[in-house]
């Protein structure tokens, strides 16, 4: 008897009991469900929830693999074991197995904790409330390890995942009912609860904290750098990464967010498969560019001089905002979350534009929160229903006017 039959048997055995949702979930996750719809006509569509989620996960895999290499590369670069890559995407000092191994041993535990804890919470809720386990956590569980710093302690991640899934999703009624993006809720929780692990110059490269400690103790360690570009710009330090480095992603940062190049590929894939909304992505990019350009103009007009604490980020070329920090990652994978984004087409334009616009604004004006995109997306998540409401009302008014004009 194969595993499939065993699962069928188990499922039938527990049919109608409290544990049924848990067995159903394992079954549908591994195999096609053995029940078919009975009677009546019904709509057939290829893109069910599971397929949607899987496509997003596929779009995330390049970022994940790159993140593993980058984690190792940043560490080995800081310890001086590899030389810096020279503006080329296929560089031997980046794509080597040592880098991958270090990344793998650091990132795999994060993924296991993220999925294990998150799915456990989902299963418990499904069993207690007696509904089916939904696939909603599959993408969240993948996103979470990609948007945290490499050295985050596992128990912190576990606490944050419990918080994010329960407060961000389950209290509203589970997948499809949540107001806030669960992955970002988890990150926001970490950010406010354990700020020393989520910001600053020591957390983005594996082992930077220890090396800084050794240095303070008098050891001769080469480099302790590990500041993200956003962090150093906020302190008005000059940019010491080339544009190509930033575009390809050979920079410190959260695990999956650094490579704008691969995020762009993921975005094209999501748009091509019609899973992600191109309206949101495009308008968010526009929003970020407009805000960045306004800041450039302010600098050009000499309103802000080099002594100002805003100078570093304001004087950054407006299009470079897209290459640094998590802006691109947030726009492509999180702003487009179909549940928490605006639903109407016009609403999506407004929603996306404001995300980009606010992200850059928060970045520049609040150096304490260099990663503005997280806060901007969460804020716009809250406003998305309002935007939709006014778009729909506007449409109704327009139609009423047309009707009146016709009847007159």
């Amino acid at each position, binding site marked *: 008897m194969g595993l499939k039959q065993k699962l069928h048997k188990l499922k039938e055995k527990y049919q109608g009991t409290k544990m049924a949702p848990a067995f159903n979930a394992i079954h549908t996750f591994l195999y096609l469900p053995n029940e078919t719809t009975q009677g009546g006509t019904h709509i057939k569509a290829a893109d069910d929830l599971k397929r949607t989620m899987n496509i997003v996960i596929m779009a995330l895999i390049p970022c994940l693999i790159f993140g593993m290499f980058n984690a190792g590369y940043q560490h080995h670069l800081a310890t001086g074991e590899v030389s810096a890559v020279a503006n080329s995407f296929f560089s031997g000092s980046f794509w080597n197995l040592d880098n991958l191994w270090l990344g793998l041993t650091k990132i795999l535990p994060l993924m296991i904790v993220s999925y294990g804890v998150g799915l456990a919470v989902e299963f418990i809720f499904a069993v207690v409330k007696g509904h089916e386990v939904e696939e909603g956590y599959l993408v969240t569980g993948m996103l979470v390890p990609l948007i945290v710093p490499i050295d985050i*302690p596992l*128990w*912190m991640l576990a*606490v944050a995942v419990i918080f994010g899934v329960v*407060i961000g999703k389950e*209290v509203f009624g589970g997948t499809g009912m949540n107001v806030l993006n669960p992955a970002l809720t988890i990150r926001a*929780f970490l950010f*406010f*609860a*354990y*700020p*020393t*692990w989520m910001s600053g110059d020591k957390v983005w490269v594996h082992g930077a904290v220890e090396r800084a400690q050794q240095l303070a103790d008098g050891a001769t360690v080469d480099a302790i750098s590990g500041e993200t570009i956003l962090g150093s710009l906020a302190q008005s330090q000059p940019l010491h990464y080339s544009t190509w480095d930033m575009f390809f992603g050979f920079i410190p940062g959260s695990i999956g967010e650094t490579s704008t190049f691969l995020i762009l590929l993921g975005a094209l894939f999501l748009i091509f498969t019609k899973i992600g909304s191109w309206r949101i992505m495009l308008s968010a990019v526009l929003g970020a560019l407009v805000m960045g350009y306004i800041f450039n103009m302010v600098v050009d007009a000499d309103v802000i001089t080099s002594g100002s604490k805003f100078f570093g980020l304001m004087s950054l070329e407006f299009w470079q905002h897209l290459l640094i920090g998590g802006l691109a990652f947030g726009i492509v994978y999180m702003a487009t979350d179909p549940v928490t984004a605006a639903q109407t087409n016009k609403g999506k334009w407004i929603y996306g534009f404001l995300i980009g616009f606010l992200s850059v604004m928060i970045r520049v004006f609040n150096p304490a929160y260099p990663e503005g995109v997280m806060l901007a997306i969460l804020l716009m998540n809250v406003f998305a229903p309002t935007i939709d409401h006014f778009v729909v009302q506007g449409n109704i008014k327009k139609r009423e006017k047309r009707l009146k004009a016709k009847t007159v």
Partner: protein
Amino acid sequence: MAEVAEQEEKVKVPKEPLFSKKNRKLITDPLTDNNPITIQVLGICSALAITAQLKASIVMAVSVLFVLGVGNVVISLMRNIIPSKIRIIVQLIVVASLVIIVDLVLKAFAYELSKELSVFIGLIITNCIIMGRFEAFALGNGPWKSFLDGIGNAAGYGLILVIVGFFRELLGSGTLLGIPVLGDPIEKTGLYAFGYENNGFMLLSPMALIVVGLIIWVQRSRNKALIED
């Protein structure tokens, strides 16, 4: 003769015992099924603002207990002579006087704490629970019942404050009443030796709202009758 007259009076109006079932309910109801914070959702502002430390929560709870207990009795005694048109002003004057007493006592005997609680003691005046109980109960009931009602509601309010304060201080600062209970975060003793860290989010007001929300969730899932549509 006088004794006989008294006895006759007693026979005429059977006196309710001080702690009859009805009177006891005045105290126990606000603690659970009619809690001012979790059921009536009143007095939230102060519950969010001052619960980062357990000590501040307890002082706040005691202050409200005093103001509401005494205030209810005073209003109840005056209920037949207050013209209804100006009753809100009269109530405000009563609360204000009591709050000033609390404020001065705190300044005299617990100066540090009064600085910490700063404006929130003064803002007891605007606490919806107090005006609510004056309006809804003290204006229509005798002093003893009003006293019990005041004590009960203030205790219900204080109970939630202390629960929220307990969790926020324990998880946010690792202390209780200012005494470190989880070890020393700098020397890395106790729990901190295992890599535990204080949760800074607990010290921010949004977390108080979430903790109150969790209490409401637990309470309503234990007693389904409390769930509104």
